[in-house]
Structures are given as C-alpha cells and as structure tokens.
C-alpha cells in the first residue's frame, strides 16, 4: 500500500529531497522560515501557508527569509541562478507577480536569447494561485496564462500530490526559469506519493479519465471538478475523456489533438478569466489542427471576465463547477449541425 500525503507535504518533500541532493538549491521568500530577527520561534511559519516548514532547521541559511520587496528578492533569485545557484523562490500569492513582473519577463525569460545562448537561468518561482478561499480580488487569481505567453518561461500547474512532487523536482532540475503554480484549494488534498525522488517530464499531459464522447481539457483544481462532471455524465451514458495539461508551457499539443480526433468534441475548462487564456489557447489549437474532426462547436467553461469577488456566494458563482462543466459537455453532445427545418414536422 503506497503512502498517502497531502499536496502541501508533497511540495515540502520535493524541496527537502532536492536541497539534500544539491547544495546549490536555495529556498528564499517572505517568511519561508519566519521568525528571523524575533525573540520568538524560528521557522515560525514555514511560508504563509506552511509549505516550507521544517526546511530551515535542516538547511540553515540556505532557507532565507526576505524583506517584502518582491522585485529585489525575485530578481536576486534570478541573478543567483545566472551565477550558478538553483534558487527556489516563493512568491506568496501569484497576484503579487505584478510587483516584480519585469525581473521575470524582461530579465529571466530573455537572458538566454538576448545573450546569444550564453546564459542559463535555472530558477523556480513557486506561487499560490486560485480562488475559493474567500481571499478576494488580489489574492485569488490564476495567472498562468500571462506567463505562458512569454517565450523563455515554463509554467507548471500541478493538480495532485503525486504530480506536485514529481513536477517540482523536475522544475528544480530544469535549466530554464519555471513558474510553478500551487492552487491553494489543493494543499490539503491527499494522494499516493512515493517516498523516493522522481520526476515528471515537462510538456506531458495526462489522460486522467478515458472516454470516447467528449474531450475535456483542463488543469489545476479544475481537473477534479471535471472528473466529477464526467462521473455524473457517465450515469447518462456520456463518456468524457479528461486531459490534465499539467504544464501550460511547454504544452502537450499532441495529447489534446489526438483525443479530439477520437471524440470529435471539446470542452475546455479553466478557472481563469476567459480572454487570452488557456481556454482560448486550446480552442484555437484544436480549431487549427483538428477542425475536420469536430462534430460540434468548442465549449469553454471559465470564470467570467471579472475580478474575483469576496462574498462566498459570488465567488462560488465565479468558479466553474461540475454542473457547468457537465452542461457544456451535454451541449456539445446535443449539437446538431443540420437541425431539421422547423416546417418539416
């Protein structure tokens, strides 16, 4: 019987194992230990949601608390990466990426290209994304699409404890800058995770549920809501194939195309807002490369084009749920390109 741990523990274990294996791996960020310079307990927090707890006692000054100045410490992680380190920098909530955007998209992402190949920037930026914690507009976004847009960056969005560990170890060993998005609603999710170290390659989506009628492409927490919807639809005889993208850059185009070629129907589910996001990206991909296979228009299930609201009822409406996903899948199943003429009955 394999061991079961939480998503949060899986991330912690990946960091621990990589720090133990490679002395150039550093962890830095706001309160990643906590208690620095106080009279009280050191390692008081282990990160705002406790993900890095226990690393400071074990690795000492390789786990570095920072001032709340994201441009400086994210930039420092990037600079240290170009100078031979493998920093893993925690940027608390992905909403704060705006504060240090320049260091990520103008500096880290472009060094290798601008400098004629001479630079290597093996930095990982871990950050919390996602709505559902009543954290409102500036602590709840899902911003991976913005970074997926930038050449030179890789973006990882794990959905299970197993993937969280394997993809984080892969990200740390990767020689390009990686933004690693941790959905806050998944931290307590439990799953089977091997104790030994392992990696999951970038750019390999996973078919998490097989089915021949509708392809559902999704990522992050929405993977679980999509599976829930698929289970409901199965009771009515509709079999959905659910694809977890796992990384948005690089993107596993082949798995998406192959599945749509088999089912002929596509629903894309993304918690993020609808414009210029993963849902539109995947829809465009399929329209370009699998148009002939489509039996119905593509459906997109996303948040509305609004900030994330605070009130619980509104936030629940904001996030796609299994009912909306199921409705979208039913609608692509029921679509008829040549509807009978209304006078024919």
């Amino acid at each position, binding site marked *: 019987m394999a061991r079961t741990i939480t998503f949060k523990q899986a991330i912690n274990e990946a960091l621990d194992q990589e720090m133990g294996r490679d002395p150039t791996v*550093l962890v830095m960020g706001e309160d990643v230990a906590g208690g620095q310079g106080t009279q009280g307990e050191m390692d008081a927090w282990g990160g705002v949601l406790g993900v890095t707890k226990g690393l400071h006692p074990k690795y000492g000054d390789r786990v570095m608390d920072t*001032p709340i100045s994201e441009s400086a*410490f994210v930039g420092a992680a990037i600079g240290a990466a170009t*100078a031979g*380190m493998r920093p893993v920098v925690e940027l608390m909530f992905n909403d704060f990426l705006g504060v240090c955007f320049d260091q990520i998209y*103008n500096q880290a992402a472009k060094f*290798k290209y601008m*400098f004629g190949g001479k630079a290597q920037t093996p930095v990982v930026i871990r950050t919390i994304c996602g709505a559902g914690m009543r954290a409102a507009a500036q602590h709840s976004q899902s911003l991976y699409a913005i970074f997926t847009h930038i050449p*030179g960056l890789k973006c990882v969005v794990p959905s299970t404890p197993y993937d969280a560990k394997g993809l984080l170890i892969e990200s740390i060993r990767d020689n390009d800058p990686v933004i690693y998005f941790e959905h806050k609603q998944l931290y307590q999710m439990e799953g089977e995770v091997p104790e030994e170290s392992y990696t999951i390659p970038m750019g390999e989506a996973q078919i998490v549920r097989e089915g021949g009628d509708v392809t559902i492409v999704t990522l992050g927490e929405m993977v679980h809501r999509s599976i829930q919807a698929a289970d409901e639809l199965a009771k009515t005889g509709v079999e959905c194939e659910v694809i977890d993208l796992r990384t948005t850059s690089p993107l596993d185009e082949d798995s998406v195309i192959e599945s749509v070629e088999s089912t002929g129907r596509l629903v894309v589910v993304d918690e993020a807002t609808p414009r210029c996001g993963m849902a539109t990206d995947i829809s465009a991909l399929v329209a370009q490369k699998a148009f002939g296979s489509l039996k119905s228009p593509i459906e997109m299930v996303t948040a509305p084009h609004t900030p994330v609201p605070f009130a619980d009822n509104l936030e629940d409406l904001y996030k796609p749920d299994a009912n909306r996903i199921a409705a979208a899948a039913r609608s692509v199943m029921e679509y008829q390109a040549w509807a009978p003429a209304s006078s024919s009955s």
Partner: protein
Amino acid sequence: MQTETQSPSTTTSLDKQDLLEAYRQMKTIREFEERIHVEFAKGDIPGFVHLYAGEEACAVGVCTHLNRGDYIASTHRGHGHCIAKGVDVHGMMAEIYGKATGVCRGKGGSMHIADLDLGMMGANGIVGGGPPLVCGAALALKQAGGEGVAIAFVGDGGSNQGTTFESMNLAKVWNLPAIIVVEDNGYAEATSSNYTVASGSNADRARGFGLPAVRVDGHDFFAVHEAAGEAISRARTGGGPSLIECKVNRYYGHFEGDAQTYRGPDEVKKLRETRDCISNFARQTIDSGQIEPSELEAIDRGVMQLIESSVAAARQAAKPEAAELLTDVYVSY
C-alpha cells in the same frame, strides 16, 4: 556627511603597468563610442544606441579592481562597462551591427550586450533592472565562500527606481558583497537629476539603508579608483554592501539622434575642454613623471587600429542565419 572626495588624487597602489592599462581601457571606450557616433549617423548601425563617452573613468576606475569571477550588471549605456570588464571589442562592435559574429550572436544588440563568461551580466534595456540581479550574483558568490563581489552600475535615472532602493535594503539585510555605483551624468533622458533625485544625493539615500557611501568626482579616475577599492575590499572581506555615487557627464545625448535641446549652449564643448577624464588622467600621469607622452601615443595608435579593424570586420560579417530566430529561447523545450 562622510567623505566627499572631490580633488584629484593619485593612487599609489597603481604601478606603471596598471596606469597604462587604465589609460588603454578608457581610450578604447572613448574611441569605440566616438566611432559608433559617426557610424550611427551614416545609418549603418540599427536600433537604439546610448553612448558612454565622457564617463570612462567610472567604468574603468571600478572594474580595474575586478577579477574575471566577479560580476557586473550594467545599464542601457553599457558599452563602457563591457570594455572595462574585458569583453572582446570585435565581438562588441559586431553585436552592435547586428552580426552573427557578435558577442551575443546578433540577438542582443547594444542594449543587451553581455558576456556571462566574463561576469558581465548585460547592459539592460530596463532602467533599474540590474541591482536585484546583482544581489543574486553576490548571494551566489557569498554561498560559494570565496571573495567575489558583484557591482551594479545604475544611472541617476535608475537611482530613482524602487529596484535600486529594494536592492540596497536586501543587500544590507543579507550582508551581500554587492556594490551599487550610481553614475549621475546629470540627465535621466532629458530631465535633470537636479530635478528628479530628491535630496540630491544618492550617497545620503544609501546611508539611510546603512550602507557606507561616498560621492566622488566621476571625471577623476583616481578618485573613483580609490573609492571603489575601499568598497570592494570591504565587500571581499565580509563587510557587506556599499554605494559609490559618481558625479559625471555624458558627451552625447540620451540616445544617438537626441538633439539635446535641453542642454546649455557649449555645455559639452566646455566639459570636453575642462573636465575630460582621459585628458586629465594623461596630464596628471605625465606631470608626475610616471608616464611618458610617447607611451600614451603608442596606446592611442593601438586603440585606433583596434577600433578600425573592429568596424571593418563588423561591416563585413554575416548577419545571423534565419534559423537563429528560433534558437536559444530555452535550454530544452
């Protein structure tokens, strides 16, 4: 106020070879920039170019203290820092012409000219982009346990960016071997630093963060060299970060093509006649009997040949292959 080095001085730690080398580097930067000014006007050089002529004593005064393993990050006005850190002049000229033989294979250009192999982390198209990166390089050097240092050059424009303030704070909090060199050349683009730098003193600002800081005459190689030597040896021995503010002037516009109507009549002419760092250096070292005029003339000839051959080679070099468009985005993808 702490030390305000203003009067020209000579530094005894420099022997004759050091002096000749410093002169050669300053002269190389000057002639490199003067030539680019001419070639740009002909239309042969693409894009945005920002020239460092007039500020040579800052780059060379600082970088003379550095080893290959030390790091620098530069500004958009980066040619001088590159040359002072030892980047190949032929490779630089070819880069600025956008050629495959360029130090960045023609994919960076003037604003991103860099050579990581030499610890030159790049000119930077983003004002204030460098200081956080330098904190990181300094952290890596500190973790490695050696005596390496990392230097961020910023202009008076960059000195007003939050990244510079944040980096001073972080460098102090982490006691990093990082040094910020503010080159206040009087103008952030077309606006005076008298107007944009509140308090008028970056040295004062740095002291607010607990950094030792000095303001020096950036036209005076010896003043810069002495201040940098002190800051760098402090950093190498675990004494943490410092700031050096160099008051200096640039001879050309913000970018090539800038009509500079914001500058006073004859301002640059007067500066060239009275404040020129290279003329002053030559006069001081000759007057003190350390160097013969003929030795400087020999260097001048060598520099002119180097610049001439670098332009000729850059003109003839091939542009990057079309396939280069898609390479070096990632290590693996």
